[in-house]
């Protein structure tokens, strides 16, 4: 093991597979050697770059040699970019090996100072310290892959499944620059190595499954999805079953995850691409979205609305008819949402000409679903902008079909009156009961005038069977009645819950004496 410094704890490593020791001298430039010697020099430089330097715990170490490596890498990038026929067979294993040595490393754990999980939406990523070298290695490898002299048939001996697996593991890096390079690199590999495609897809699926169902943590989902987008775009028709399963079992469940905002645009693109390829997938996709529809996370709801509009933009009218009822029931809920961004986004659908034409073709089914939500909120919503948008939506409905609109209005009013009548009836029933109770001669005896809300003392006599049965019947009726009727607005009264006290805690607290009590003051204060 050759070190550049006498201290033993330097982390300079000599690559175990390189032939020959590390040359502590800067090698010559390509332009200074004869073309016949260039291949040998190339290999030497590649091997030299297999030495790793420490950028993290001691950034100022070996500055000279770090610069040598950087210069070598830079020179090699130029060399293969501007020269033809320099990528010969012996070069391939060296390049792949150099890349592997530099790149394939265990990623450090999340460096969040509080020890909490890295939140991709909030936290600043930790950048890779060795980036000055890593960047050049990535760039070099990419040029290598993209060179017109590159032959996948030769390279496939070295770029194999193990290589790809390790490459995919790097996608969890926190450094976005690294992920960007990885994305492009994997994209090229996928394009050129047909034999690796199925393996890559399988491994990506595994990453996604682990992300969705086990960890909910991975930094590279967006990049992976971007690659998949370009793959999906290239699918041949008819779609293979494997791809359809991928959509239903992987892409759709990705909507569930909490950190959706990090990769949503890429995910939505993938989904829409699928639907453009095969429109028969529309119904399962829309139903899955509705199933995963966020119930408490409003920013996520806005994202779903964005995606849904994009899907509707490309939907076939025949597919639209299949999903319109559950879809508009969900839209009706969104329009009534007290969160103004959700309501606005949902109402903005009415500005989409294609969606409006779909609605007008199916107005008889859709209008009765949307109308109550719109009409009810036209005055009661707290946000004024929403009023304006609701008016636009109602106006468009009115223009579509006057009679249908009038029918919906009448029905709405009729139902409202029915509700009012019912609640009035219930109110009167209560009053009647109260009056009946008051007319009982024992009323004044039983009532405690000082505190009407205190619990009544239990009777020591056992209640009769008939009483119990009557009580049971009343309770059952009352319970079902409540389910059917709508609840009247009643001010909510909070009740504090009584928690049982732990005897040890109570004892400990009692016996605790504060330090100040035990210490005596010396100043006589």
């Amino acid at each position, binding site marked *: 093991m050759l070190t550049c410094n006498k201290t033993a704890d330097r982390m300079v490593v000599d690559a175990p597979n390189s032939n020959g020791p590390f040359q502590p001298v800067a090698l010559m430039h390509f332009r200074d050697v004869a073309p016949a010697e260039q291949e040998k020099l190339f290999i030497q430089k590649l091997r030299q770059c297999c030495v790793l330097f420490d950028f993290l715990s001691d950034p100022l170490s070996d500055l000279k040699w770090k610069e040598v490596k950087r210069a070598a890498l830079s020179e090699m990038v130029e060399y293969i970019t501007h020269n033809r026929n320099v990528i010969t067979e012996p070069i391939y294993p060296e390049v792949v090996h150099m890349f592997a040595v530099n790149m394939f490393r265990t990623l450090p754990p999340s460096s969040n100072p509080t020890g909490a999980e890295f939140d991709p939406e909030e936290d600043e990523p930790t950048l890779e310290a060795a980036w000055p070298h890593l960047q050049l290695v990535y760039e070099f490898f990419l040029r290598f892959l993209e*060179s017109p002299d590159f032959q996948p048939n030769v390279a496939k001996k070295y770029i194999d499944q193990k290589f790809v697996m390790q490459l995919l593991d790097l996608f969890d890096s926190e450094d976005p620059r690294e992920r960007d390079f990885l994305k*492009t690199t994997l994209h090229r590999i996928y394009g050129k190595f047909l034999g690796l495609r*199925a393996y890559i897809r399988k491994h990506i699926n595994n990453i996604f499954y682990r992300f969705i169902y086990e960890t909910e943590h991975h930094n590279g989902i967006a990049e992976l999805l971007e690659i998949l987008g370009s793959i999906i775009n290239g699918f041949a028709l008819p779609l293979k079953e494997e791809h359809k399963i991928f959509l239903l079992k992987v892409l759709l469940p990705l909507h569930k995850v909490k950190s959706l905002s990090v990769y949503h645009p890429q995910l939505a693109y993938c989904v829409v691409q699928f639907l453009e390829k095969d429109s028969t997938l529309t119904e399962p996709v829309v139903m899955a979205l509705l199933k995963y529809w966020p119930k408490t996370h409003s920013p996520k709801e806005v994202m779903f609305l964005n995606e849904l509009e994009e899907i509707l933009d490309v939907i076939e009218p025949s597919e639209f008819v299949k999903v319109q009822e559950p879809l508009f029931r969900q839209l009706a809920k969104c329009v009534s949402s007290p969160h103004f961004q959700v309501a606005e986004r949902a109402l903005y659908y009415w500005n989409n000409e294609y969606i409006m034409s779909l609605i007008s073709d199916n107005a008889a089914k859709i209008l009765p679903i949307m109308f109550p939500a719109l009409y009810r909120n036209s005055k009661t919503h707290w946000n004024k902008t929403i009023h304006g948008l609701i008016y636009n939506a109602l*106006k468009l409905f009115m*223009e579509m079909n006057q*009679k249908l609109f009038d029918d919906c209005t009448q029905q709405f009013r009729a139902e409202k009156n029915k509700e009012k009548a019912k609640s009035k009836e219930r109110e009167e029933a209560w009053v009647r009961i109260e009056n009946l109770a008051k007319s009982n001669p024992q009323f004044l005896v039983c009532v405690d005038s000082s505190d009407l809300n205190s619990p009544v003392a239990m009777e020591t006599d056992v209640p009769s069977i008939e009483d119990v049965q009557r009580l049971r019947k009343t309770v059952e009726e009352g319970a079902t009645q409540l389910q059917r009727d709508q609840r009247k607005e009643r001010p909510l009264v909070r009740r504090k819950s009584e928690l049982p006290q732990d005897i040890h805690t109570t004892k400990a607290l009692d016996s605790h004496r504060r330090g100040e009590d035990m210490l005596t003051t010396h100043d006589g204060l």
Partner: protein
Amino acid sequence: MKDLQSVDSLLLKELKLCCAKESSFLPRDSGLRILEAAPAENHNAVSAKCRDANVEELWGLTSFFGYSAQTFVQAVNMLDRFLTIMKVQPKHLPCIGVCCLHMAAKMVEEEHVLSPTRELIRISHSKFTVSDLGRMEKIISEKLGSPEPQAVTALTFLHLYRSAFEALTAGREELPSIGTLEAQLKACTCRLVFSKAKPSVLALSLLAQELNALQSTTAMKAVQQLQKHLKISEGELLHWREQVGRCMAQYYSGECTKPDNKKLVWIVSRRTAQNLQANRFCVPGLPTIPEGNWDESESEDSCEDMSCEEDSLCGSPGSDGGGAYFPSTFRSTCRE
């Protein structure tokens, strides 16, 4: 055939009284003819089409603010009367319309239902101000004679007729609900042609058309009785019944027109606007990778057997990077 009861004398007296008053609330005939004659795309004079469009707007606002049909009918009555006595420029029509609606609402609706004028203006995307509205109100009430009592309109007669019918048929006939009749009247009101009819005749025509569909001879006899009481000529009734029939045919046709949302203004909050902008689409940076039909194997087991598959793929295009996968333009940009 059941015998008809006689109409309650008080009701009859009221009907006759309304008949007497109704002519004073009719829009001027000459003005109506001018409106009808005006070409549709004129910028100097209000045309029938223009008026109809405006009335539909008013109906939209009535519905949105939860005003009653009476408010709407009163507003249109005021609008028609004003338009037939004043020469108005089309650009002022929205202001006049909203003003009439507001005035009608003040007359008819309860205090708590009324919306403030700025709300009316904001919702209807109108370009005029609250003070403009105030001035217009003064002008209108001046021209129509103030304080303006509630006009006798077709709606008034509809309510009266319906009560009369119930009395006449002694509740044995199924009458169309008042809601349905109001909706039909509203549809008619949206067309200028019906402003020429006397309200009593229009209301009876509407009712007659509706009852005709029910095929009840008792009901038709009741219509005849009312016609006799109010001295409505057969010819007049037939004429308007025909007009109503045509209007209703279109109303009930159930065909949906594609709405034109270019006239509407969509105001959203800043955050939503930003969100919409951001989504105007992230074009992916990676080029498409076409899937060949002959490439990778179907099942996953043959992943291990890749070597034997690949020999057959040796001759595939694109393996040397010069094939169909990457467009040449893309390759050249990467050379730097």
